[in-house]
């Protein structure tokens, strides 16, 4: 109980978010539309306060970043961009005079937005299985509602329901996995599980638990075999919500996977044959599972992406394939002690999440500006000739596609260097070949988007509507940051921070020093000169 209190005291940022969410709910009930419109500003304020509190936490820890603070900061930063985007959710009463729920600004939408982000923050700080489960569900549950209420169409309801039921199945799967882990170790606290694993090693039951957890969480990150919902759900939701879906549950999923996998890596310390340093690779069984998942996720995402003509669906499949790339990074997650940043796959995943979020957000933001007869226009031909009609939007689309495809000088390229470098470091060169071939495949459909913007004839079928004054600034900020990070302005410190966040807190902090010494004494790794 005492521990819970200590834990609660570290939750300042989350508290700020929850307070913001409650305020949104209250404001959303007000009669005057002017007051109701304050909800997005409240969200922004909550995010700023949470960001400041996180910064204070880091200062308190004398500048050392942990997984929790890193995730909180990332959520605050990307959350600010997202809320600028969410403010495009229409708020005017529909001109026909009929009451249209989707056209009234509602506080609950923004409250759910904040709840979901709070869930991600909690995932980052989780140190208990139950906690992790609750955090994951807190992330997901609001998203089901957000899909449905953002838009008054049958498609939106359909996506919401699909997402809900499949999400429930996935939650059951990983909860089952969590219980197995509990069964294998007898603990729910991460530190205790670590210690238990260090004693028992990786038992079959534990492996089974991990496999189920990984597959279940695979739903959140839209990885094979739980990827199939993505295109339908993304297409049905309103574009800002789609952008939200493409980032928030995915971040929660990857953060949880890093937390779970780092539980077992510690029980598996060996000497790297090349560098002669201590490393802790994943158990072979888990590694092969992730290998297959990564390869299939990338390939399916990219190949199916090739066949789409709807930009939203293309971006949905691209987001599947990006999960595949990040799974490649997860395989690289076992930092050797004292290794450089590039060997650290978990940090690479965190870095790539930021890179991916920036590119994706900008692409969706441009897409949301295109409308046809008052509806979203998301077919490829809606983009046709965009460069002539609106060169700024086309340039943003171009840069975001370049970042997503991983071309220099965008941050997406650095992200890939980081991910693939880490995987090569762990000896997964074969998978990296699969990944780079996939990057090449993905270039085809990104090029299709770009070529539609730049080479297409002017299309009269879609018009550009800026439903919110924040869309273009948001997209420009995202793209601008992506370039700056890629060129090295702040990118290096982001990489260092991500490295710090994943090495200090999760892996080697509680390494049993005796265990290492014992390992070092074993003949296989001892200095041959002694013999």
């Amino acid at each position, binding site marked *: 109980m005492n521990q819970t209190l200590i834990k609660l005291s570290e939750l300042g940022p989350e508290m700020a978010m929850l307070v913001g969410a409650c305020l949104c709910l209250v404001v959303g009930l007000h009669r005057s539309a002017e007051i109701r419109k304050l909800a997005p500003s409240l969200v922004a304020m909550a995010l700023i306060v949470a960001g400041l509190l996180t910064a204070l936490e880091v200062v308190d820890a004398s500048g050392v970043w942990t997984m929790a603070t890193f995730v909180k900061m990332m959520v605050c930063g990307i959350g600010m961009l997202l809320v600028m985007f969410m403010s495009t959710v229409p708020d005017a009463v529909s001109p026909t005079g009929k009451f249209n729920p989707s056209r009234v600004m509602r506080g609950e939408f923004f409250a759910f937005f904040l709840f979901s982000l709070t869930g991600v923050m909690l995932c980052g700080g989780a140190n208990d299985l139950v906690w992790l489960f609750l955090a994951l569900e807190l992330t997901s549950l609001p998203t089901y509602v957000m899909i449905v209420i953002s838009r008054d169409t049958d498609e939106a309801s359909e996506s919401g329901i699909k997402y809900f039921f499949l999400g429930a199945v996935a939650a059951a799967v990983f909860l089952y996995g969590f219980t197995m882990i509990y069964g294998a170790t007898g603990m729910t606290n991460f530190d205790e599980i670590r210690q238990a694993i260090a004693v028992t090693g990786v038992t079959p039951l534990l492996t089974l638990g991990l496999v189920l957890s990984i597959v279940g969480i695979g739903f959140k990150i839209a990885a094979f075999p739980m990827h199939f919902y993505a295109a339908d759900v993304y297409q049905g939701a309103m574009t800002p919500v789609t952008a939200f879906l493409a980032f928030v549950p995915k971040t929660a999923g990857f953060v949880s996977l890093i937390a779970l996998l780092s539980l077992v890596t510690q029980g598996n310390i060996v000497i790297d044959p090349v560098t002669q340093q201590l490393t802790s690779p994943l158990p072979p069984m888990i590694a092969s599972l992730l290998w297959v998942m990564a390869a299939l996720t990338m390939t399916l995402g990219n190949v199916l992406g090739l066949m789409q003509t709807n930009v939203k669906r293309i971006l949905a499949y691209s987001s599947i394939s990006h999960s595949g790339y990040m799974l490649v990074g997860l395989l690289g997650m076992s930092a050797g002690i004292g290794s450089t*940043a*590039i060997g650290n796959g978990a940090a690479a995943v965190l870095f790539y999440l930021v890179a991916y979020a920036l590119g994706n957000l900008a692409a969706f933001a441009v897409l949301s500006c295109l409308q046809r007869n008052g509806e979203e226009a998301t077919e490829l031909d809606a983009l046709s000739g965009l460069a002539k009609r609106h060169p700024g939007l086309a340039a943003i689309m171009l840069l975001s596609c370049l970042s997503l495809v991983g*071309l*220099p000088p965008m941050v997406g*390229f650095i992200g890939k260097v980081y991910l*693939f470098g880490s995987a090569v470091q762990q000896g997964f060169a074969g998978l990296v070949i699969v990944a780079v*071939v996939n*990057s090449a495949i993905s270039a085809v459909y990104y090029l299709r988007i770009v070529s539609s913007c730049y*080479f297409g004839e002017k299309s009269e079928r879609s018009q550009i509507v800026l439903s919110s004054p924040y869309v273009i600034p948001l997209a420009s900020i995202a793209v601008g940051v992506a370039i700056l990070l890629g060129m090295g302005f702040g990118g290096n410190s982001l990489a260092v921070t991500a490295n710090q966040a994943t090495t200090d807190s999760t892996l080697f902090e509680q390494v049993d020093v005796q265990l290492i010494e014992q390992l070092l004494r074993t003949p296989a790794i001892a200095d041959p000169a002694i013999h």
Partner: protein
Amino acid sequence: MGLDIALLPLLVIFPLLSGLMLPFLGGDDPQRIKSFALISSLFTFVFSLGLLVGYDFSNSAEMGLVTDVSWFESLGLTFSFGVDAISIWLVLLTTLLMPLVILGSFSAIKFRIREFFFWLLLLEAAMIGVFVATDILFFYICFEFTLIPMYFLIGIYGSSQRLKAAKMLFLYTFTGSMLTFAGILYMAWCNGSWDFSFEALSHAHENMTTNQQVLAMLAMLAGFAVKVPLFPVHTWLPLAHTEAPTAGSVVLAGVLLKLGTYALIRLAIPMLPDAALVVAPYMGILAVVGVIYAALICWVQKDIKKLVAYSSVSHLGFCVLGMFALNVQGLSGSVMYMINHGLSTGALFLLIGMIYERFHTREMSQIQGLGRVMPIWATFMVFFAMASVGLPGLNGFVGEFLTLFGAFQSAVLGPAYAAVAGLGLIFGAIYILHMVGKVVWGPVKIPQGHENDAKDLTGREITVLLPLAILCLWLGVYPMPILRTLDQPAQAIMERVGTDLLEENQAKPPVRYDYHSHVRAEISSDATLTLKTLSEGGR
């Protein structure tokens, strides 16, 4: 001293910034945009001349003017700049061609002018970046980035099949270079440290078995051979060339293809020396096949531009043959070939562009006997065609001769390769003369409706061609200033690969090269001396 450090970054940043300024340049006057682009590229050229002053040529295998700018320390990435003799000449080729290309496309580009020059300047920055990078990922970034401007140049300003051509160019080269990317990571991993500087990676082979080296070499070749382009991955090139606007073709032939060969000489061969020895015979075979095959294709082309495009494939085959001869003659000949090919083929594309601007066709059956109506154009055409064929006394000869001679003498290739590739020379003469014969001589034939367009070259067009012609002549008669500087880098590569020892161990009687029995007497005595000293110096 301060200038020394700033020079190389300046060469990259200046065209980049002027490119980025272009969209914000006020006013819609196309003339203003054009002159801005021209002036900034001229400035870049002037800056690049500083290389000749600032670099110490007495030690031309060493990287000079070295500068590091921090980028991603934690991932081992730095923007590190440096040049040696090989890169200096290629940088100068780039900066020289660029103003000419810009001047040459003043009248050809009629819409989206601002965008056109924007992409051209960005392209220039990226190409210079490739030649001055001494960090492999910085190199790779510039190498990849050249794709984006090229994609737009072809996709927006190309002819009828431009979309397909742009897509093919992008996908072919991108796929290849992604594999190269994996290879680079693999090399760094084998090396045991995530340091991507050339310096660090030049020791990678010490930590790699031959098999590992061959794997890395294959990955490198995947990217670079596509760019060269080497047979059988050359199929994107003819389409890209034919569909590209003139400026695009000139840059593509003049510089972009050289990125591939430069990467082979700079990275693949010296960093993976054992693998280079293993793959050299195969590369030699591919190069020779490419030479012959492309030459035969040229013979049957009806479209002049396509003919010149295929001739690039054939010519670059010589270039690859020379470098995989792995001796001084071959390597320095290969670099010479890059420069010469850039000059003469670039000029040919410019000439064809001028024809296309006038008649809107490039079919040989439609345009004939232009010698009578456009004498100046015809003079240039014959001149550059001869340079391209390799007529002694013009620049093409020097590179061709040295690469063949290198292959002949090579310890890893041998006379057979040179003999077969030599056939390519004959075919080369046939197809070029066939084309020139039809287009320049013979009865006058001008496409219907364009009878009044058969005007000779304007002053602007002559200004574009003249510098190239002078250089072609100069490099043909007296290539020594360049050749002399290439000796040391070539020697250094040879020592890394170990072919210098190989040649000594062979202990075969040195082949005395009797100049007069091989080369016609017209050649000037300067060139004689050059070639003779060179052929002896290598042994």
